[in-house]
């Protein structure tokens, strides 16, 4: 049931959900705190770089059709490298699930459930995502696709409905804290495109392998547009100091929406859609974490793996003592994990694997890939 493949639109939604949920959490806030009024230019700049990276990934993966980064690691450095890369990505996913789960649950507690222990909110989320994971990848991808338009609309609506509250001049100075800050140190905002991590694991799940480039470009393009929208909303709506100090800034932006005296307090609707969105994202992350764990351990009996990883995530999510620590993990640690592991290590593996493939081809005069393709097929 879990091995069924997904279509192009579902695949785009899978990559998109990573970015959209981080936008809902506090991605725009993090970008604005780095580049202030230069954030709009910075987002455009990092989106262009993300396109280049995605182009590179899709070109490098062309020589390894239907293989994910773990299979390519095995091809490059054997089982040891596969295990190391798998463990690194597994740690990344567990860390992401834990932090996102805790951060969003804390926010929900502040806004709606001040008397409910945060552990209960987290457990309810975990119950939902473990249950969805039992239904398989296709079910997760489809439900994610079903809710994606609603979630995208909520961000678009916040952007449009706040038009009257914008101070357009806040885009100046265009370069924010200077050209160096916007273009050089601002390049670290590339972490916003954390969805790239999922691009490494998508190939085996795609119905149409030839559309991989199209899927990757569409996902990054849409992500870039919505990131630009949310950053613009916050930048033009709040003074810089406020934009970088709030929790769940898009929620606060939603609180400012009003159409006359009869159409107010829409924020509850937004939070409701974002709860669903967050559950979809966590389900996907848990699926990929489980999948990686199964692949690197080659375990036969994998029924309890979903629950096991969910329990680990729950435990890790309880470690941060307060919102300050969560914010540090979200904005700093998460940022460097994406930059080093997802962009640095991920691309490095693909480049070296291609070089090895080229050398082997030249030596043997034929490609070694068909065999590897077979070896990928799961038992």
């Amino acid at each position, binding site marked *: 049931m879990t091995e069924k493949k997904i279509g192009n639109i579902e695949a785009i939604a899978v990559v998109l959900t990573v970015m959209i949920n981080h936008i809902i959490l506090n991605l725009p806030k993090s970008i604005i705190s780095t580049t*202030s*009024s230069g954030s709009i230019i910075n987002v455009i700049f990092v989106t262009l770089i993300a396109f280049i990276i995605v182009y590179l990934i899709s070109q490098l993966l062309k020589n390894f059709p239907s293989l994910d980064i773990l299979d390519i690691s095995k091809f490059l450095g054997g089982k040891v490298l596969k295990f190391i890369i798998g463990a690194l990505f597994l740690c990344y996913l567990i860390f992401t699930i834990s932090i996102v789960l805790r951060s969003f649950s804390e926010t929900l507690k*502040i*806004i709606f*459930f*001040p*008397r*409910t222990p945060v552990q*209960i*909110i987290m*457990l*309810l989320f975990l*119950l939902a995502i473990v249950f969805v994971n039992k239904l398989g990848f296709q079910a997760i991808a489809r439900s994610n696709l079903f809710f994606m338009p609603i979630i995208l609309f909520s961000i678009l609506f916040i952007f449009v409905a706040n038009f009257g509250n914008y*101070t357009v*001049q*806040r885009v*100046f*100075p265009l*370069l*924010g*804290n*200077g050209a160096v800050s916007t273009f050089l140190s601002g390049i670290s905002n590339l972490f916003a495109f954390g969805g790239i991590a999922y691009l490494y694991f998508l190939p085996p799940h795609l119905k149409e392998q030839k559309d991989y480039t199209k899927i990757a470009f569409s996902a990054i393009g849409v992500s870039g547009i919505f990131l630009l929208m949310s950053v613009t909303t916050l930048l033009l709506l*709040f*003074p*810089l*100091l*406020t934009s970088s100090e709030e929790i769940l800034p898009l929620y*606060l932006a939603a*609180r*400012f929406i*009003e159409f006359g*005296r009869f159409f*107010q*307090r829409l924020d509850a609707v937004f939070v409701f859609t974002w709860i669903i969105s967050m559950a979809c994202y966590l389900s996907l992350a848990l699926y990929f974490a489980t999948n990686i764990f199964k692949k690197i351990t080659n375990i036969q009996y994998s029924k309890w793996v979903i629950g096991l990883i969910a329990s680990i995530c729950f435990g890790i999510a309880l470690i941060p003592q307060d919102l300050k620590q969560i914010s540090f993990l979200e904005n700093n640690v998460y940022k460097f994990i994406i930059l080093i592991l997802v962009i640095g290590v991920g691309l490095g593996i693909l480049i070296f694997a291609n070089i090895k493939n080229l050398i082997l081809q030249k030596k043997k005069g034929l490609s070694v890939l068909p065999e590897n393709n077979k070896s990928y097929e799961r038992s």
Partner: protein
Amino acid sequence: MLKNTYKYVSLIIITIIVSVAFTGSHSVQSVDDLAYAIALGIDIAEDDNLEVTFQFNIPSANGESGSGESAPSVIDSVKANSIDSAINLMNAYVSKEINLSHCKVIVISQELAQKGIAKEIYSLMNKVQIRPDSHLVITTSTAKKYIESVAPSLENLVAKFYEVLPTSGDYTGYTINAELGEFFNQLLCETCEATATLGNIVQKKEEENTSAEDSSSGGTEGQSNESVSAKNGIENLGVAVFKDDKFVGSLGTEETLAHLLLRNELKNCNISVTDPEDSTKKIDLYLTSNHTARINVSIVNGTPYIKIKIIANTRISSIEDITKDVSDERISKIEEASADYLKELLSNYCYKTSKEYHSDIAGFGRYALKDFKTNTEFEEYDWLSHYQDAFFEISTEVNIKSGFLLTGT
């Protein structure tokens, strides 16, 4: 066998988690058990403490509002060292738990505002229950007296009255609709200063003769020579001007009109200009601000130089000779007189806020942002402290479109 065990264990776990999750809801009070404060008044008490006044609606009375009688409300006040302590203390006193999610207005006394209200505003904005669209009023009397004086004559519900009253600026130009969220943003803004609605108690005639108390209330400086005799008990006219978080002065109704024009927040209003052909007579014009104010700020020798151009469209509301043909020459004379009137109004406003209050409440600073290459440069320039040195070049243009039903033009 194992499958069944797994199912049962899962069911038990889910049941435990869900029941624990909802156990909390038994202790949460329902709507009937909550006391909804519709207004919050904050005054300064002895020893720098706060006197916080709560106005509660009585929910059961609201259902009977169709009877035509005003729904009663309860006003209680408590002295404490912070808003949160006051809420706590009041919670111990009233039989229901206080909920601020329907708080329509926050009234702060001028006396407290003069000492700085950043702490109070931060405290309010930090509460999930308080909405950013709650109205913020600075009253020349005490906040408690302001709330006690509210006696809506055309509304049964006080909450509705609080909701509608501040929006009158949309069609009068006499007041601004200051909201808590906006005020908070202005406090943190590097290109503008904060403003709030200015509230007064309307003195009843019999009281005016017998009581000299609160002689300062009922009017503000710079106000036109119009007066109100109404039963509402309060009036919201003018703007409370802040420098940082401190109240530094107020603007009268005419200056409020200039403020709204410059912030492009004026929808429409009536203005009276002196008839250019007979200085003893007035012409009433209905002003619509279809054009946005064109503002250009440049930094000349380190000093802000602010160019303002306002184009306004008007319709003649009342003129003595509206029924006979009004010549083009007369129209252009009225246009010129109106433009001069607006220019003077804007000039007074700009120099008052700059030289007297040192407070850029119009937010001219945002137009200066483009003159700086980086935020650091702008921060180092410190716009808000340079605003007092600003020079203004104001030009106005008024186009009279027609009259209303009796055009004559």
